[in-house]
């Protein structure tokens, strides 16, 4: 393998990884805070894409990077406040079952609203085509995805690590009782976190909308892959998801180069390998409240 080929597939792996990170990180913070495995994640991703194709004729593509996550985030908050909240005290399986059912329901809502027919949607004119950087010719839009992902991930990291709200979220996911003792109500925090997770899924949906077919089945596999990334990285771990997303992206990219039939299976093989060595995932730690 020559250097150019290696670099091409390496860069592509990073961009693939960036998409996986965006997908996974929302799932991860929802689990870390609320302890719910959100099976609607793939659907929220799809809703981000559908919001984009619906709004784009009026506002263009770029405002959707803010608008769609905002709308989907609000939907997430509504779902949390109306339903999920009631399930925290019960069996943890309830949340799983509820989000599983909700995912099927929302998928049918999408079919009923937008039709089973996919919606054609193109890359915005400004980002079409490829750029050559030396011997490496790569899609402009994918560089844009990479850039957006870095900004979003950095922004989220800043929010969680450096702001008082982020501190409450982190503290709340470690020791909710202590946070309550300090006089902070976690109810609105849970709602906000679910909304934030949903918005993250929607951003990846917005970015994917010009690349993938926007149709009602688009979220099915995606949700599964997001889950795989979170499990590899360690449930609830921010940097775990980042590292794991990049690993999965690279493994997939090079697997397609050398052994394409295994491209899908490679993600799961990686997950099994990591779990055998580190049962809590790469950066997973022991979480008192779940054990």
């Amino acid at each position, binding site marked *: 393998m020559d250097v150019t080929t290696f670099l091409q597939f390496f860069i*592509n792996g990073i961009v693939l990884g960036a998409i996986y990170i965006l997908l996974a990180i929302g799932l991860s913070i929802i689990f870390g805070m609320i302890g719910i495995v959100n099976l609607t994640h793939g659907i929220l991703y799809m809703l981000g894409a559908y919001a984009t194709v619906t709004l784009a004729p009026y506002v263009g593509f770029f405002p959707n990077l803010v608008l769609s996550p905002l709308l989907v985030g609000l939907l997430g908050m509504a779902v949390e406040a109306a339903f999920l909240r009631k399930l925290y005290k019960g069996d943890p399986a309830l949340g799983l079952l509820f989000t599983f059912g909700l995912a099927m329901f929302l998928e049918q809502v999408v079919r009923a609203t937008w039709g*089973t027919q996919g919606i054609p949607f193109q890359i915005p004119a400004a980002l079409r085509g490829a750029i050559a950087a030396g011997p490496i010719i790569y899609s402009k839009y994918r560089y844009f995805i990479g850039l957006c992902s870095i900004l979003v991930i950095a922004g989220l990291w800043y929010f969680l690590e450096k702001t008082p709200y982020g501190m409450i979220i982190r503290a709340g996911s470690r020791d909710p009782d202590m946070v309550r003792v300090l006089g902070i109500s976690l109810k609105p925090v849970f709602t906000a976190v679910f909304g934030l997770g949903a918005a993250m899924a929607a951003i990846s949906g917005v970015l994917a909308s010009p690349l993938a077919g926007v149709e009602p089945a688009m979220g099915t596999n995606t949700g599964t892959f997001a889950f795989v990334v979170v499990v590899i990285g360690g449930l609830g771990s921010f940097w775990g998801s980042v590292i794991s997303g990049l690993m999965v992206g690279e493994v997939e990219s090079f697997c397609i180069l050398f052994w394409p039939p295994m*491209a899908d299976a490679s993600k799961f093989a990686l997950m099994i390998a990591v779990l055998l060595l580190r049962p809590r995932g790469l950066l997973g730690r022991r979480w008192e409240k779940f054990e």
Partner: protein
Amino acid sequence: MKSGKGISRRGFLKVAGTTAAVAGTSGIFAPAILKAQQQPIKIGHLVPLTGFLSPMGDYAAKAGKLAIEEINAGGGVLGRPLETIVDDETNPGVGVQKATKMIQQDKVDFLLGTVSSAVCLAVMEVAERYQKIFVNSGSNSDEIRGGKCNYYTFCTEASNTQYVKAIGRYLVKNKNYKTFYILTSDYAFGHDLTRVSRRLLAELGGKEIGHDLVPTGTADYSSYILKVRNANPEVVLCNVAGADQTTFLKQYSEFGLKIDVAGGVTDTVLMWNAGKDAAQGVWTLIWWGDLDNAWTKNFSTKYRQKYGLPPENQAWGDYTSIKALAQAVQMAGTTDSKKVVEAMEKIKFDAGKGRELYYRPYDHQLIQPMYVVSIKKTGNRDQWDIFNVVSEVPGKDENLEVIAPTKEENPCNMKRA
């Protein structure tokens, strides 16, 4: 209303046929017939409503409904109304389960549908076990009508060989590609399509310089596209199916490669979903809603009036299958499987392809012309106006069977009941 005329003419024929059938029966059986009139003839309709083939499933279900309504408005078949029971087929296991349930619990008389070849192969076995006719309206693999064919299965959908020979004849005449890169969906359909494509390559004297098996439901093709670019063939033969084809084309146009695309099999909806800017290449299509003939105009208009969208080729498949089945039942005068099989082997009908079509008795494949289409890039009437028909294969003066698999290519030794 334009279509009203069509219904009433068809309706008149149906009523006339039914009256004749009833009149021809001895009066002694009249009470039995009256009772039978209330009993609908049931068709179990299996369509993919979820998963990567679901873009086609919705059209299949809607077209089935339209066909049933038309037939029932015309007095039904043998004086009995038709009824469909629609269910989802996503994988072979589910397909078998649903087909068995339809036969055992719903007591269906016939089975219809499937888009996935893997599901079709599984459902065929159920049909044979229970001796019920199954009309395959959307699955392409050759072995369905070849090595694994059976007496009870009929194929309205064309075989991969018919598709590939159609594009092959076009490529031989019009393009002189020497180097090919093949991308193949990693399941029954893709493997079969690639097998047939390689036969074509040998014929063309083309060289396969790369081949990748692509998992179904792949969301990202960038790595495959990079491989294609590095290999630099003259043409990419795209043998991926369903929504995957849309995703591939969108991303292929994103990378702006100058390498041509051709494909043995496409479905209209996949190109609609990609949009005219991203869609490219030459492809074989079984039927297209803008074909210039009366049958097609009538069907497209009616479908559009009822559902607000133009019909896709999968709509044609299921609509045509039900109409053919109804014609055969009418001819057989019964729903008895064996008698209807014999009638299916005899019927000839128009289905918007300009020539009389028929199911070949030896392998139960519908013998029909195919259409090579390219993407219409300018002067589009609306977003649905996406194809130029560049060639009808075989030509008007050629025998329809020249693109069908030969007995050597695809041996079918069905056990006749």
